[in-house]
C-alpha cells in the first residue's frame, strides 16, 4: 500500500477575519505521481485549500485549523513556509504579478539566491531549466515582455529549480489565451511524466484541464468536497453545472443531442469517448449558422493608422464598420492590437491618420470625456476604475460631474443598480464587494451615462460560470432593451461560442477575418492565427466525420 503524499483528515478552517469557516470537514488523499484537478466556483474554498497546502496558511493568513494535515507523512502545520516550499512549489495565478526578478534569468534564480547558493551553481541550474522550457534565448529579457505562455513557463522554471516533488498551480489558465493555455497544460502533463511529480491544479476552466489527462477531479463547493473521483465519473454524475462550473462544450452538445452522458464510457476524454452510436442524434440538432443581421451603420473606422512612438505602425489602414445593436467580439493574440483598438475608439490614444465616425460624425476632435458620452469603456481590472467608497456614489459620480440634478441622478442610478442586481447593496462600502460584483458595478457606472456603444475588455476574466452567465444575461438584457451595441475583447472560448454574434480577428494590426463565431471556431487556420483553439465540438465532429462542425457550434448557443 502506497502512503499518500498528501493526507487531509477532517480539516476545518476559519479565517480570523471571518465568522464562518471557509472549509468544513474536508478529507482527501493525494498519492505520489498523481495529477489532480481541484475545481470549484469562486468562493468555493479552493484557494484556501491551496494556501493550506503551501503554508501561506497559517503563516501569511491567520485562522483556526482543525483536523490533521500531512505532507509526506509530516504535519504541515509544524513546518515553516521555507521547509514546505522545498517540497511543494507553487505557481501563483497572475504570472505577471509574481515575477520578482528583473530578467527571466534572475527570476528563475530567485529561490536559489535565497538559499545562498554559489553563483556558479545557480547559473548552471538556470541554464538547465531555461533550456528545458525553451527560454534559453530569453534569459536577459524582462519577464513582462514575454508572451503569456512564456511567462507561465518562466514561473514554472522558477519553482522547478528546487527539484521538489509536488507542484501546485493556482488557476494556471487565468491569464492565458486558449492556445497558450493548451500549451501550458501539455507542459504540465510532460513534466509529470518525465519527473514522476505529483501535480495539483486549481482551476474552474474544466474543459482545458481535462485535455491534460488528469487522474482525478475533486469538486469543491461551499467549503465542502462534493465529489472526488476520476474525470469520467465526475462528468457522468453531471455535478459540474450545478456547482458553478462549465461542462466541456462537447459534453453540453452530447447532452443536447440526448446521448446518455451519465453512462457513456470515457466521456471525459474527447479523444477516447465513443459517440458513434449517437451520430444521427447529434447531426439532427445541427443548426444552420445564422447569417449576421445588420442594422444601420453606427461606428465606422476608416483607414486608421497608428503607431507607438518611433515604432513600426501597429495599425496600417485599418477599416471596419460596427452596426447598431450588434454584439461584436474582437479576438486575437495578446499584443496584436485588440486593446489598442479600443483605446483608439475611446480617445485614450490618437491615430496618426484615418478617421473614426460615429453616426456619420467624426470623433477625432472630441475629448475623452465627450466620447465617453457615446462610447462607454469598461477596463479589465475593476480596481482601476473605482474611486468612491460607497456603491451608489460610484455610479452617481459620472452623472454628478455632468451637472445633472440630484433627483434625476437618484432615479437613473437606482434603475441601473436594479439592472445589475446591486440595488440592495447601494449603501454598502465597495470594499465589501466580491470581484464579480465590482465588475458589475464598474459596468453600471459606465452604463448610467447611457452610451450607445459599450466596450468591455475581458469581461469574464477571473469569473466562474455562474457569474459569467449572470453577466451575460444582463448584457443581453441591455442589448435587447436599449439597443446598446456591445463590443467585447476576449479570448474566452465559451463566451465566443455562446454569446458573441460577430467575431473580428485582429492579428498583427490587420483584420484577418470578420465572421460568425461558429465559423471561426471551426476554422483551424484562423483559430491558430488568433491564438485560440477549435472547440471540442469541432474535434468531436471530426472524429464522427460530421461535415459541418460550425453548425454544431451553433447548436449549443442558447
Amino acid at each position, binding site marked *: 500500500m502506497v502512503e499518500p503524499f498528501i493526507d487531509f483528515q477532517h480539516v476545518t478552517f476559519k479565517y480570523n477575519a471571518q465568522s464562518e469557516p471557509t472549509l468544513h470537514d474536508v478529507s482527501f488523499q493525494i498519492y505520489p505521481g498523481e495529477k489532480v484537478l481541484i475545481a470549484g466556483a469562486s468562493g468555493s474554498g479552493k484557494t484556501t485549500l491551496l494556501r493550506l497546502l503551501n503554508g501561506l496558511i497559517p503563516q501569511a493568513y491567520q485562522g483556526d485549523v482543525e483536523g490533521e494535515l500531512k505532507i509526506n507523512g509530516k504535519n504541515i502545520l509544524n513546518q515553516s513556509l521555507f521547509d514546505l516550499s522545498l517540497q511543494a512549489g507553487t505557481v501563483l495565478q497572475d504570472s505577471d504579478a509574481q*515575477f*520578482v526578478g528583473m530578467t527571466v534569468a534572475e527570476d528563475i534564480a530567485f*529561490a536559489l539566491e535565497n538559499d545562498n547558493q554559489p553563483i556558479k551553481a545557480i547559473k548552471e541550474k538556470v541554464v538547465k531549466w531555461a533550456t528545458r522550457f525553451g527560454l534559453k534565448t530569453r534569459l536577459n529579457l524582462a519577464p513582462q515582455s514575454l508572451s503569456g505562455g512564456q511567462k507561465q513557463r518562466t514561473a514554472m522554471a522558477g519553482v522547478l529549480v528546487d527539484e521538489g516533488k509536488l507542484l501546485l498551480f493556482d488557476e494556471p489558465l487565468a491569464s492565458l489565451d486558449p492556445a497558450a493555455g493548451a500549451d501550458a497544460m501539455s507542459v504540465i502533463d510532460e513534466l509529470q511524466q518525465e519527473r514522476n511529480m505529483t501535480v495539483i491544479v486549481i482551476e474552474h476552466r474544466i474543459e482545458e484541464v481535462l485535455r491534460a489527462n488528469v487522474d482525478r477531479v475533486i469538486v469543491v463547493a461551499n467549503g465542502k468536497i462534493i465529489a472526488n473521483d476520476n474525470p469520467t465519473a465526475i462528468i457522468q454524475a453531471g455535478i459540474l453545472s450545478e456547482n458553478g462550473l462549465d461542462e466541456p462544450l462537447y459534453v453540453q452538445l452530447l447532452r443536447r443531442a440526448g446521448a446518455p452522458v451519465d453512462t457513456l464510457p470515457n466521456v471525459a476524454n474527447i479523444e477516447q469517448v465513443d459517440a458513434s452510436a449517437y451520430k444521427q442524434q447529434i447531426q439532427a440538432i445541427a443548426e444552420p449558422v445564422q447569417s449576421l443581421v445588420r442594422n444601420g451603420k453606427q461606428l465606422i473606422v476608416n483607414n486608421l493608422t497608428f503607431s507607438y512612438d518611433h515604432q513600426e505602425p501597429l495599425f496600417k489602414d485599418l477599416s471596419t464598420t460596427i452596426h447598431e445593436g450588434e454584439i461584436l467580439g474582437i479576438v486575437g493574440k495578446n499584443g496584436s492590437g485588440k486593446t489598442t483598438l479600443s483605446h483608439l475608439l475611446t480617445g485614450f490614444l490618437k491615430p496618426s491618420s484615418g478617421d473614426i465616425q460615429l453616426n456619420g460624425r467624426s470623433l477625432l476632435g472630441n475629448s475623452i470625456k465627450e466620447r465617453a458620452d457615446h462610447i462607454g*469603456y469598461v477596463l479589465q481590472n475593476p480596481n482601476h476604475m473605482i474611486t468612491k467608497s460607497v456603491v451608489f456614489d460610484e455610479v452617481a459620480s459620472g452623472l454628478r460631474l455632468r451637472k445633472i440634478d440630484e433627483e434625476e441622478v437618484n432615479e437613473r442610478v437606482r434603475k441601473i443598480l436594479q439592472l445589475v442586481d446591486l440595488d440592495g447593496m447601494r449603501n454598502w462600502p465597495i470594499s465589501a464587494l466580491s470581484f464579480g460584483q465590482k465588475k458589475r458595478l464598474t459596468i453600471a457606472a459606465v452604463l448610467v451615462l447611457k452610451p450607445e456603444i459599450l466596450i468591455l475588455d475581458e469581461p469574464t476574466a477571473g469569473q466562474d460560470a455562474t457569474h459569467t452567465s449572470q453577466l451575460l444575461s444582463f448584457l443581453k438584457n441591455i442589448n435587447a432593451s436599449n439597443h446598446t451595441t456591445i463590443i467585447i475583447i476576449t479570448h474566452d472560448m465559451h463566451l465566443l461560442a455562446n454569446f458573441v454574434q460577430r467575431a473580428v480577428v485582429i492579428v498583427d494590426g490587420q483584420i484577418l477575418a470578420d465572421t460568425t463565431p461558429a465559423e471561426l471556431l471551426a476554422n483551424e487556420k484562423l483559430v491558430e492565427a488568433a491564438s485560440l483553439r477549435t472547440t471540442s465540438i469541432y474535434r468531436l465532429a471530426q472524429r464522427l466525420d460530421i461535415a459541418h462542425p460550425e453548425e454544431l457550434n451553433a447548436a449549443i448557443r442558447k
Partner: protein
Amino acid sequence: MDNSLFGYKARETWINHTTGTAKLVGFLALTTIGMISYDTRFLVALTILSFALIKMAHIEYQEYALLLRLVLFIGLINLVMITVLAPQYGVQLYGTKHILFGSGWFTITTEQLFYEANLLLKYLFSFPLAIVLLFTTNPSEFAAGLNKIGVPYKVAYAVAITLRYIPDVQSDYRTISLAQQARGYEISKKSNLMKRMKGIVQIILPLVFSSLNRIDTISQAMELRRFGRYNKRSWYQEQSFSKSDVGMILAALFIVMIGVLLFVTNGGRMWNPFK
C-alpha cells in the same frame, strides 16, 4: 512601448557597464565631499562633471525634465526661505558685509547671495549624479551593490523592488487617469488648477489599492520562494570588479582628495573670495 517612463533602461554606454557597487561608491563619495565643501570652484567643477556624465550615459533631457523641475522648485523654495529667515547668515560666514540693497533685517548682501549660489550648486551637481546612478544601474545590481557595502539584503531588495515597480505604477496611473477622464473628471490642461487637483485625487485612491494588491502578491511570491530564509543571500546579478570599476572608484577618491586638499588651503570648508 512607451519611452517616457522613468527609470532604468539598458543603454550601451561605459557607465551602464560599470558595476552597481562602483557607481554607488562613486556616488556616495562625490555627494559627501560636495555636501561638505563650500568651495565654489570645486562645486562648479563637480556640476560640470556630473552634467558631462549624464550626457555620456545617453540619458535624454525629457527623461528627467519633470524631476529636474521638481528639484529646482524645491531648491528655490529652500533658498527663498533662507533669505527670509536668515538674511545675514552669509555675512556671519564670510565676515565681511557688501551691501547690495535694502536695510535693517532685510539687507541683501553679496555674501548672502554668494552663499546661496553655493547651495544651488549643491542641488545642481548632486541631481544629475543621482539620475545617472538610477538610470544606468539595473535595480537588482543596485541592490547587490547596496548589500555589498553593508546594507542588509532585505532593505536592499526592497529598494530594488521599489525601483522596479516605478514603471508599473506609472502605467497604472496612466490607465486610471484615462478611465477617470472618461467618467468625466477633467484633468487635461483645458480645466483650471483646482479642478485638475481634484481629478488627480480621484486617481490616487485606485492607484493605492492596486499598488497594495501588487505588494501583497509579490511578498507572497517571494516568501514562497524562501526570501528571508538565511541572513545572507547570493546575487545572480553580482558583477565581479573590472578595471574600469577600479578606475571609477579611484577617480572618485582622487576628486575627494582634491576636495580635502582645498579644505587645507582654504583653512576650512569655505572658499572666501571677499578677503
